[in-house]
C-alpha cells in the first residue's frame, strides 16, 4: 500500500512516516504544495494524507486536482483548524476524511485502513490477521471461517486493533477512537476494560488465539508475538 504524506511540519511528517512504515505501508513524504502536486500527478497512491495549510498553496487545491484527475486514491485531510466549514468544504471536494491536529498516529492508521478498504473495488475489502478475518463490506467477523457476533463497539475495537497490530495502544487513544469526544465525560477508563474483556472472550471462544495483551498500567497491544 502506497501512501503520500503532504505535510510542511517536518517533525510531524517524520512521525507519520515512521509509524505508517512500521504498519507495513510504503510511504512518501513532501513538504509543500508544489512538490505535492507534482507527486500526485506523476504517481499513483492508495491514500494521500494532506495538510490544508501548506507553503505555496492550499491542500484543498490538491484535493481538487485529484478529483479532476479522477484519481482512485483515498484522501485524508489533516488540519489544525477544527472548523465545520473547512471540514464540510474538504469533504465536499471529495476528501474521504478530515482529521484535526493533534491526532493519534494510531487513529490516522485506522482511518487510512478503513478508507483503503472502502475504496478497493476489486472485492478485497477484507483484512485478515491469522485466523481472524474482518469483512469490512458487511461489517462481519469470521474466526476460522465461522461468523462470530460482535457488537458495534467490539467490531470497531477489533478493526482498530488489527490496523495497529503490534503497537502499544493507550486507553486514551482507544477511548477516543471508539467513543469519540463523549469519553471525556467518563470518570475513568473502566468502561474500556469490559469491552476488551468481552472481545477477548468472544475471540477465544471461537477458537482464536488470545492476541490481546494487557500492558501493565498503560494500555493494550494486539500482537501475535
Amino acid at each position, binding site marked *: 500500500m502506497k501512501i503520500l504524506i503532504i505535510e510542511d*511540519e517536518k*517533525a*510531524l511528517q517524520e*512521525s*507519520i512516516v*515512521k*509509524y505508517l512504515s*512500521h504498519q507495513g505501508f510504503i510511504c512518501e513524504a513532501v513538504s509543500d504544495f508544489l512538490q505535492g502536486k507534482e507527486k500526485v500527478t506523476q504517481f499513483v497512491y492508495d491514500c494521500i494524507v494532506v495538510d490544508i495549510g501548506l507553503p505555496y498553496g492550499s491542500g484543498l487545491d490538491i484535493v481538487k486536482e485529484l478529483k479532476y484527475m479522477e484519481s482512485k486514491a483515498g484522501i485524508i485531510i489533516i488540519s*489544525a*483548524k*477544527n*472548523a*465545520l466549514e473547512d471540514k464540510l468544504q474538504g469533504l465536499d471536494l471529495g476528501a474521504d476524511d478530515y482529521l*484535526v*491536529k*493533534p*491526532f*493519534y*498516529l*494510531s487513529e490516522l492508521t485506522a482511518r487510512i485502513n478503513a478508507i483503503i478498504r472502502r475504496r478497493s473495488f476489486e472485492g478485497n475489502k477484507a483484512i485478515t490477521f491469522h485466523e481472524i478475518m474482518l469483512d469490512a463490506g458487511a461489517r462481519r467477523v469470521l474466526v476460522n471461517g465461522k461468523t462470530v457476533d460482535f457488537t458495534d463497539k467490539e467490531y470497531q475495537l477489533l478493526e482498530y486493533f488489527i490496523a495497529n497490530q503490534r*503497537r*502499544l495502544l*493507550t486507553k*486514551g*487513544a482507544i477511548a477516543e477512537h471508539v*467513543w469519540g*469526544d*463523549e469519553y*471525556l*465525560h*467518563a*470518570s475513568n477508563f*473502566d*468502561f474500556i476494560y469490559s469491552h476488551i474483556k468481552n472481545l477477548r472472550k468472544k475471540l477465544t471462544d471461537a477458537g482464536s488465539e488470545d492476541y490481546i495483551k494487557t*500492558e*501493565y*498500567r*498503560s494500555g493494550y497491544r494486539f500482537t501475535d508475538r
Partner: protein
Amino acid sequence: MKLLTKTTLYFLITLIPLLAIAGFYLFNQFSKEINYRSDKDLINNEIAWIRYLESEVNNGATFILKTPELAIFPTQSAVERYPTITNINGYWRHENTIPYRQLSQVVSISGIPYQITIRQSQEQKAALVTDVTRIMLFVFIGLFVATLIFNWAISKKLWMPFKRSLHKIRSVELQKMQNVHFEETNIREFNELNASLNYMKSRIYKDYVNMKEFTENAAHEMQTPVAVVLSKLELLLQDSNLKDGQVQAILQSTDALRQLSKLNESLLLLAKIENNQFETTTEISLVEVTQKYLILFDEFIKEKQLTIQTVFNDSFMVQLHPLLADSLIMNLLGNAIKYNFDGGKIEIIVSGNKYHISNTSVLDPIPPDKLFMRLNTSAGNEASNGLGLAIVKKIADVNNLAIEYHSEGGTHTFEITKA
C-alpha cells in the same frame, strides 16, 4: 436636575428683576403722563379761576372759597410768578390715603394778593400700581407656564438623539460593537458627541478584534507543535526497551498535552460562539438531542448505575445550530454523569418552555459568582478543563436562552428557559 430645568430656572430667576425694572419703568411713564395731564388741567383751572376772580374783584367783592379741592382766599404773602405743583397725600373716605396733585400760587388780582390752591385727586395712580404689578405678574406666570410646556415638549423632541445615543451606549456589547452606529442629527453638539462616540467605538472594536484574532491565531498555531510532540511521544511509547517508569512518564505527558489541546479547542469554540459563527435559521429539538446523548452516554450511565428519569412533555424546539445544541446537551448531561456518584440519579423534565436537568452529585454547590466562569475547575478533578459551563452559558446567551442554576440537598439543577 435636568439640564433644561436648570437653564429654565436660571432664565426665570433673571427674569424677575427684569420684569420688576420693566414694571417700574412702565409705572413711571404712566405716572409722568398722568402728572402732565393733571398739571395742564390744574393750570387751565387756575387761569379760569383767575379770570373769574378778576371780574369778581373788579366788582368790589372779596372772594373766599375753601373746599378740600379748591381754596381761594386773600393772603399777606408775597406774590409768586410761577405756580408750585406738588404731590401730596390727602385723606379720602374711610381714612384711605390717596395721592393728590396740588397747585398753589399767590397771585395778585387787581392788586390784592390771593392764595390759590387747587387739588386734583390722583386715585387712578394708585390703581395704576396694582394694574402694572398685575400685568407683570401675568406676564411672569404666562412665561413660566409657557416655558414649562416648552421644556416638556423640547426635552421630548430636542433631546431625543441624545437619549438614543445614551440608550445605545448602555446596551453596547463588545462583540456586537461593530453594528452600533451613532447617527447624524441636526444639532451640532450632538453631532460632535456622536462623531466622537463613533470614533471611540471603532477604536475599541478594532482593538478588540486584534486581540481576539491574536488569541485565536495563538490557539491555532499551538495545535501543530502539540501535534508534533504527541506524535513523538506516541512513537516513543512503541520502544520495547522502555522501563515502566518511563512509560508512565510518557503517558502522563501525553495526557497533559491532550488536555492542553482540548482546552485550546474549547477556547476556540467559545470565541467562535462569541463571533456568531454558528448562526442558523432552523429549529432543533433539544429533546431529540438529549435522547441522542442518552444513547451515546449509555455506557457511562450503566457503568455508574445511574437512574435516569425523563419526562418529555414538549419537544423544546429552539433556534440553535446543531453543533451548539450538541455541545450544550453534551456538557450538561456529561457533567451530570461525570460528577455523579455510583447509584445516583439524573432527572430531565421538559415542559412548555422549560428544560430542567438535575442530578445528585459528589460536588458541593457551585458558588454563584464562580458558576459560569471560565477555567473554574472544581477541586480534585483533573479531567475537567473548567470551560464546559462557560460554553453552556455562552451558547445560551447568544441564542436567546436563559440558564439558571440552583442546588438543594446535594442535587444540582440547571434550567433552560426560552427568552
